[in-house]
């Protein structure tokens, strides 16, 4: 079997904004055999996408191949002139992007973009290309394959666009397809469908593939071999089974461990004292637009949601994108006033509107947002960011405030020297720690965590979860933990509420999040989370009727 791709001692330089040249790919070599799917696994900044793109003879603006060879189907491409490289793209090697939604041109119809490769390279007449595209749509299990191409990209869902972009990649019969995190932006139930479609099409055509991802469980379903990358260097290469079961490199082991965080050790129930719940939410209805006399907003996002959260306990809220979980956090925090229902903090009703709540109520209930990048003011130093709540809630100033800032930095395990830095100079994990420290500065009793680990790499996210647990032990905090990621929720929560289409479907203990869940949607959701097992996808059976009933695609 000959190799489709041979990469030898590849080195890529990038020019940073300040004009410095940084080596981002260091001496990388690997082969891909015909029909083989190889996964490039690594955290953000590990160079996985950069390597994948060099296989197309392409580097993003500012990057440059400075050494080594990339051989595609027997031809060296890194030193070919642009015109000859362009001739290979779409015909020999093609690309499935991370965000299909951004990669389809909003101004053209889908069919025109799918068959564009055949037009550019004059592969076949238009009618034939259209027929072939429709066949690919069928093979990728797209609905209405005959007419879906006549729509514009904004008229189809994210999961469908992702499969359409695979059709776009396959139309020119390439020898190699590069998948760049193609399911990262999708919900878990959608992801399964897309993964299955990819896998069957690739197998049928015996096409070689490169699958770029940070998610080991997803990769385990589709890849034959895994290459583990870090800081632009290969850490370990091996068959998927071997990497998952017998990892050699310490970094690989770290990645695997981060995938399954230690389950939450629950505090023994002290049921003897009938305690007032810390937070009680009763029949909340909320949404956008005008509210009518019956208290129903014109666009209802949350419908009659109730739950209780006791002191020192954590409640997880899970659900897929658009189910209203983040809106719920905003309603509890009073950012979006509810149309109906009430929120009680320690038995005391809170005003629906944030602006009418007392300073003490505001202090007790803090919210931490998903994106620390946008939640921290880039113009302020870390010390200023943390000083603000200290002054606002506690009237601190001078030495006392400075000492408290140092203390807060210690609590979130950041060096005190960071206090003079600005948010942009910090890493993603560090920024999220500052974000958390700001909530702690208020001496909150309850912290609403809205997808706080979703934008972080697995290893960093696991460390943040550890920190949350530690802080809880020390400060007897409670968390309302909102996430779409079930394993994170499992790692930190005592109870989990499942939401679908604005309603709470059920509340259960994370221990029984498997098959024992009562509601069919919960079962569907839990069974859709990929497992670190190469046979998981193939053996997974889901009731098609349930799938149909709970898909708003």
């Amino acid at each position, binding site marked *: 079997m000959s190799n489709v791709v041979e990469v030898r001692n590849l080195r890529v330089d990038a020019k940073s904004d300040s004009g410095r040249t940084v080596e981002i790919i260091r001496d990388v070599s690997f082969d891909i055999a015909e029909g083989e799917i190889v996964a490039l696994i690594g955290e953000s900044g590990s160079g996985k996408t950069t390597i994948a*793109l060099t296989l*197309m003879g*392409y580097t*993003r603006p500012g990057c440059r191949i400075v050494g080594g060879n990339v051989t595609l189907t027997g031809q060296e491409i890194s030193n070919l002139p642009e*015109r000859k490289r*362009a*001739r*290979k*793209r*779409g*015909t020999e090697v*093609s*690309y499935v*992007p991370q*965000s299909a939604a*951004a*990669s*389809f*041109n*909003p*101004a*053209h119809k889908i069919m025109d973009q799918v068959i*564009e*490769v055949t037009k*550019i*390279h004059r592969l076949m007449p238009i009618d034939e290309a259209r027929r072939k595209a429709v066949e690919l749509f069928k093979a990728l299990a797209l609905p209405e394959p005959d007419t879906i191409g006549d729509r*514009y990209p*904004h008229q189809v869902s994210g999961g469908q666009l992702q499969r359409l972009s695979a059709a*776009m990649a396959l139309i020119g019969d390439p020898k190699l397809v590069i998948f760049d995190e193609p399911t990262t932006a999708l919900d878990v139930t959608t992801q399964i469908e897309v993964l299955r479609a990819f896998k069957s099409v690739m197998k049928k055509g015996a096409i070689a593939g490169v699958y770029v991802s940070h998610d080991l469980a997803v990769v385990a379903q589709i890849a034959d071999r895994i290459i583990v990358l870090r800081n632009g260097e290969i850490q370990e290469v091996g068959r998927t089974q071997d990497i998952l079961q017998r990892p050699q490199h310490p970094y690989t082991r770290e990645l695997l461990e981060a995938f399954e965080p230690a389950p939450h050790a629950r505090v023994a129930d002290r049921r003897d004292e009938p305690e007032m719940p810390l937070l009680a939410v009763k029949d909340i209805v909320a949404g956008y637009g005008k509210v009518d006399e019956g208290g129903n907003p014109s666009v209802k996002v949350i419908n009659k949601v109730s739950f209780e959260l006791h002191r020192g306990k954590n409640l997880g809220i899970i659900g897929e994108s658009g189910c209203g979980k983040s809106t719920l956090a905003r309603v509890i925090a009073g950012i979006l006033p509810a149309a109906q229902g009430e929120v009680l903090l320690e038995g005391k009703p809170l005003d629906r509107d944030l602006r009418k709540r007392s300073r003490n109520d505001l202090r007790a209930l803090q919210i931490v947002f998903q994106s620390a990048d946008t939640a921290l003011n880039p113009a302020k130093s870390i010390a200023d960011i943390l000083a603000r709540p200290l002054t606002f809630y506690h009237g601190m100033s001078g030495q006392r405030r400075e000492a408290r800032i140092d203390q807060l930095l210690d609590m979130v395990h950041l060096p005190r020297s960071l206090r003079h830095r600005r948010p942009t100079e910090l890493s993603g994990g560090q920024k999220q720690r500052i974000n958390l420290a700001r909530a702690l500065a208020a001496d909150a009793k309850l912290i609403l965590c809205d997808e706080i680990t979703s934008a972080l790499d697995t290893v960093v996210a696991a460390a943040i979860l550890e920190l949350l647990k530690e802080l809880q032990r020390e400060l007897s905090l409670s968390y309302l933990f909102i996430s779409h990621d079930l394993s994170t929720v499992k790692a930190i929560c005592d109870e989990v509420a499942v939401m679908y289409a604005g309603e709470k479907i059920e509340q259960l203990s994370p221990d029984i999040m498997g098959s024992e869940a009562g509601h069919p949607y919960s079962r569907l959701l839990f069974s859709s989370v990929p497992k670190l097992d190469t046979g998981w996808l193939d053996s997974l059976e889901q009731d098609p009727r349930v799938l149909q009933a709970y898909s708003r695609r």
Partner: protein
Amino acid sequence: MNSPILNLVAERIVVAVVTLLFVAFTIFFATEMLPGDVAEILLGQAATPEAVAGLRAAMNLDQPAFLRFIYWIGNLFTGDLGVSYVNKMPISDLIGGRLVNSLKLASVTAAISVPIALTLGITAAILRGTFYDRIVSIFTIAVISVPEFMVATLSVIVFAVYLGWLPALSMANEVTSIGGLLKVFAMPVITLSFVISAQMIRMTRAAVLETLSTAYVEMALLKGASRRRMVLRHALPNALGPIVNAVALSLSYLLGGVIIVETIFNYPGIAKLMLDAVSTRDLPLIQSCAMIFCLGYLLLITIADLVAIVSNPRLQ
């Protein structure tokens, strides 16, 4: 085409009409507030109070301002622009020839500067960061920074005075041949082109640059598209909205903003007419000119918005 886009178009047109009414209101009462009484000015210093009162009654000037505003608007809608206070000619006759002259100048300038500006803007965006891009950028900034009377005056000094190639004054009515036309138009057109191109070049470059950095343009490149196809088919259609807006804004300047150029070259256009009307306090003429400028401006902006709406498939 279905209803949402029609709704948007209708909404845009209603907004334009309301704006026009508002402007009419503002123009009317702003000119009302100008100091001096028309009747006194017309009759001169020797006028008796009775004569002034008589003239005021004859010109309806004794009626409340609001009533006169209603009359005026009503007449405007029937196409009657009124009669000049100064030479008693119908204003439509006065404006007619002048408007044609201004439109002639505007269309020649547009025909020359729009293609040049768009080409420069687009190519500068494609060749971003190159020597060519920098030259274009420096040129546009230089042109924006130099006021037009400076350009106009300098070109008169160079081409008319020193070199003697072109006439210093542009008497459009005396043109007989194409060569003569070119000579007459050369300097005003060059000056105006300088002024309006710079804006268009910068906006076009920015709009194209933004779309060039999108994921779908990178995707086009990864499908094997040539740079030419990438720009023309994938980047440009999505940059159309902002580009058309920039062009409309620049062109609207050609109607109302040409006062300086028309004055320096003594070009018999409508801006010059308005300037003369101000010095003779010929209110109906000022009002009509201002309304025409506003109408032209609104027309261009509305067209630009409509193009942006229609070219966006998301709104269809």
